[in-house]
């Protein structure tokens, strides 16, 4: 594939660089709706919501990475995703997640401070999104 036709995708979390490869296209869960980025995309910065990035590589089809929110910066040749948390979908474990969500829900009930409540609510949302991601992955293979 000619290099000018490739899109450099980088998925970066504070802890490490998870993914850095040339890809054909990538579907990104933007805060206001999903969008897909191809080489030559107009410069664009978007907020992300918790969801799944679907990567189409030149050789591999449909690598899925879960992101818990963050930012995406798309330019003609690069797409940089700054995620707070990023995990490949096939590494997520559904039963563990369900357990986590229950724990958080119990914590939420006990918590009285509104800051903490907001935090738990957000965390539950993220885990729910993770579960959804796993489920979808099962259906679509």
């Amino acid at each position, binding site marked *: 594939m000619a290099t000018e036709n490739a899109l450099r995708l*980088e998925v*970066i*979390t*504070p*802890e*490490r*660089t998870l993914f850095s490869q040339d890809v054909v296209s990538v579907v990104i869960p*933007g*805060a*206001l709706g999903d969008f897909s980025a191809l080489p030559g995309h*107009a*410069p*664009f*910065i*978007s*907020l992300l919501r918790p969801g799944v990035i679907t990567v189409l590589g030149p050789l591999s089809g449909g690598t899925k990475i879960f992101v818990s929110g*963050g*930012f995406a*910066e798309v*330019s*003609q*040749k*690069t797409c*940089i995703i*700054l995620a*707070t*948390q990023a995990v490949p979908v096939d590494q997520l474990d559904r039963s563990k997640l369900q357990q986590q969500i229950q724990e958080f829900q119990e914590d939420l009930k006990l918590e009285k401070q509104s*800051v903490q409540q907001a*935090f738990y609510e957000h965390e539950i949302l993220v885990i729910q999104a993770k579960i959804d991601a796993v489920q979808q992955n099962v259906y679509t293979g």
Partner: protein
Amino acid sequence: MPSLKDLKLRINSVKSTQKITSAMKMVSAAKLRRAQEQAEASRPYAARMQQLMMQLTKQSGQFDDVPSLLQGREQQNCYLLIPITSDRGLCGSFNTAIVRSTRRLIKDLLAKGKTVKIMPLGRKGRDLLRREYASLIVDAPEAITKTPISFSLIEGLVRQILHQYEAQEFDVCTVIYNRFKSVISQVVTQQDLIPVVTDQHNEVQDQNKDNSGGLEAIYEYEPEPELLLAELLPRNLAVQIYGALLESAAGEQGARMAAMDNATRNAGDMINRLTVFYNRSRQAYITKELIEIISGAEAI
């Protein structure tokens, strides 16, 4: 004069101390490598974040209302200081350097009539500062400095800090930490977190200029830049603290390595000196006994 047996014991005890210090040096060397790797891995995120911040702050002139996290409050009466130290000692002047400069800063601020609050991260700093300024310490979270440093814990901390900021409990937030310059040198660095200082990262900026391809391009934003910035600022705070903690962790191991290297060398010197002294005493003792035997024989 100590007896020969005492000397022998002394030499042995110094020898075992030397073994401990040289083992600690090895351990720190291994930990240092890991800490450096972690710091290295966090850099791309921080650099990109900085870049995004700059992009957005450039536009902030057009905003109706610039977030106070960026601009700072009009009245800066209360300062929150976050000195970052280690949990463990035996690392030379690593912690005392931080505490010393924190103390100086506190004195300056108090002299100017400001209110000061301290939130020490790391047990050593907390203990040292508590002696003098126990009343100023508002909180001292413990788990944060445990290795491996976790980003999610820091996010929790940042939530608390922001909550306090919004409740007008402080106006300026400064972090004081040891920046890792090289294995043998750590530089005490003061960095303002609130309000955000955007042009402090000159290195990062220069770096970005090199590979800036599309940087000058006009970006479209979704949602509006104002909202994006509002999301970005708290995250930036977490990234800054995370970076400072990682630098400090690497610095701690470096400082400990240097300190233990010194200790090992000192122990070696001491062993040499004691061995010479031991041999001399032994000889003197033998000579003395011989003289006693000979003079005894002569007397008969």
